[in-house]
């Protein structure tokens, strides 16, 4: 098969990009032709491992531009965008709205309407999905990926989803709960749940006597570290020898530092910053904690499970409840319930055998998210969709 993925910025850092590159690597290794088509380009080098057989092209390129050009200077997407330049088809509520403009829309739709030499076009975020739905020919198989749960999308985005997603041959979402939610909004669309796969990692051995708890993510409101800190205050009182290490950087760092000082947690909670060896760091702890307000599918949590860490998590939309059964791989507590999170952390820190047992189950459950388990689902989906329309893709 000849498969093209349409991305906003293939040279960027986000989770979607990493996931798509993982998929591309597996598909190209299975003998398919895979191309990544990026709407914009701001950098020279891709940030994640990518098989050299995967072609990467850009529809617009703002490298080296002296004057601000296409999306080179993202604004806040509010009132300061000149009207004549504002995108026509991207709702303002799209989280990537500020990266789009009229010129970029034209470039994307021109690519889509002209594309003939591929079998499958996969687009990877709402704004791109809407443009593909408007412009890509029905002669190719079109698949929309959703990396975010429906409840997070703003009303104008939901309306466009309702209008445009039924035009796709299939819509792929990350969790079972998303499949239900999107299914309710889009009764006529073909919706599948295919989770993201973790990148290939060598499971490390975990010291279950360790009372280090790990968390990771951008220091941003979404990750709920502001709720994790008061929870850990209770934990530190009960377990003075415990430690919380938070990996990641972000705009809330100073505020979190202030909260740590106010709660007198500076002997128990450390903002570790970025690390290039997260796997190694995670394996120093025996517990992973997820305090997010929302997620698509929390991949670092699954990576932690791959090593055998037991998990304590809010049951936030979406992901944790897909991956965890309360009492099996760890403990699942009501979303944003700080006391329940504290109690659950104390429960697992009380009992090294419990951590060991749950960690072992976590390692088993995480196998469902290995590339070998997930990526064949894509291949199977594309083949089915092609077969249904009678295209003999493999024989051309």
């Amino acid at each position: 098969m000849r498969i093209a993925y349409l991305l906003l910025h293939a040279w960027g850092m986000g989770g979607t990009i990493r996931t798509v590159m993982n998929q591309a690597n597996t598909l190209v290794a299975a003998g398919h032709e895979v191309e990544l088509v990026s709407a914009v380009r701001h950098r020279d080098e891709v940030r994640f491992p990518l098989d050299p057989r995967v072609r990467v092209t850009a529809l617009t390129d703002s490298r080296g531009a002296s004057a601000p050009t296409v999306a080179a200077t993202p604004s806040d997407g509010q009132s300061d965008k000149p009207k004549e330049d504002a995108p026509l088809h991207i709702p303002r509520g799209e989280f990537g709205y500020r990266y789009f403009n009229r010129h970029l829309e034209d470039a994307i739709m021109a690519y889509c309407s002209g594309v003939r030499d591929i079998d499958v076009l996969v687009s990877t975020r709402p704004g791109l999905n809407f443009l593909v739905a408007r412009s890509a020919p029905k002669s190719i198989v079109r698949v929309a990926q959703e990396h975010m749960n429906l409840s997070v999308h703003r009303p104008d985005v939901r309306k466009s989803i309702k209008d445009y997603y039924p035009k796709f041959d299939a819509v792929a979402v990350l969790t079972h709960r998303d499949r239900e939610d999107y299914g309710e909004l889009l009764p006529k669309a073909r919706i599948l749940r295919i989770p993201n796969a973790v990148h290939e990692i060598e499971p490390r051995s975990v010291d279950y006597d360790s009372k280090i708890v790990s968390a990771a993510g951008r220091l941003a409101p979404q990750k709920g570290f502001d709720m994790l800190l008061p929870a850990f205050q209770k934990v530190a009182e009960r377990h003075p020898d415990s430690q919380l290490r938070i990996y990641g950087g972000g705009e809330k760092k100073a505020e979190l530092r202030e909260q740590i000082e106010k709660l007198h947690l500076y002997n128990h909670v450390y903002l570790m910053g970025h690390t290039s060896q997260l796997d190694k760091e995670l394996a120093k702890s025996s517990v992973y904690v997820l305090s997010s307000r929302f997620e698509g599918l929390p991949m670092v949590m699954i990576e932690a499970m791959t090593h055998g860490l037991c998990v304590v998590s809010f049951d936030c939309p979406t992901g944790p409840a897909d991956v965890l059964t309360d009492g099996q791989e760890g403990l699942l507590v009501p979303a944003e319930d700080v006391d329940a999170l504290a109690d659950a952390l104390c429960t697992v820190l009380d009992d090294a055998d419990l951590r060991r047992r749950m960690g072992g189950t976590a390692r088993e459950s995480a196998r469902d998210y290995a590339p070998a388990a997930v990526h064949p689902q894509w291949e199977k989906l594309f083949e089915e969709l092609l077969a249904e329309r009678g295209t003999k893709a493999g024989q051309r």
Partner: protein
Amino acid sequence: MTPHAELEQVWPRDGRIRLVGRLHEHIPGETAERWRLLLVLRDQEDQRLSYDTTLDGTRFEVSFPVDDLALDGLADATWDLHLEPGTGTPPRLRVGRQLDDIRGKKKIMVYPAQSVTSDEDATVVRPFYTVKDNLSVECLPGDIPLRPGEIELPEWIG
């Protein structure tokens, strides 16, 4: 690892800095009754502050008031911390945190500042880890925010 005083906890609060930890690779034996925490002004060895303490085996717990560090006429000052027998005989053990796996504590294990005021000036006092993961205390002239948590990170943290 050379003998040193390994920190477990540092508590900068309520006008004091309290240090908790254990001596590493040194057993004080009978001298444990009388030890002292020594603060030595960097680049000015003759300027020292000394606080008597009693060890529990190898375990130490000692505190001092931050007011003592903000000396008249010392605008910027860095104090290096040591533990030694009260007799002044060796060993002098540097206070630090060497035995865990975290490197680069200067940016990771960050402690709150406390402020000292007199009629004339204000000083911010904050313990910090050096690039060698030893503990020192820095005094910087500055205004006093209302809450320690509201103090912006001084430049030397970055």
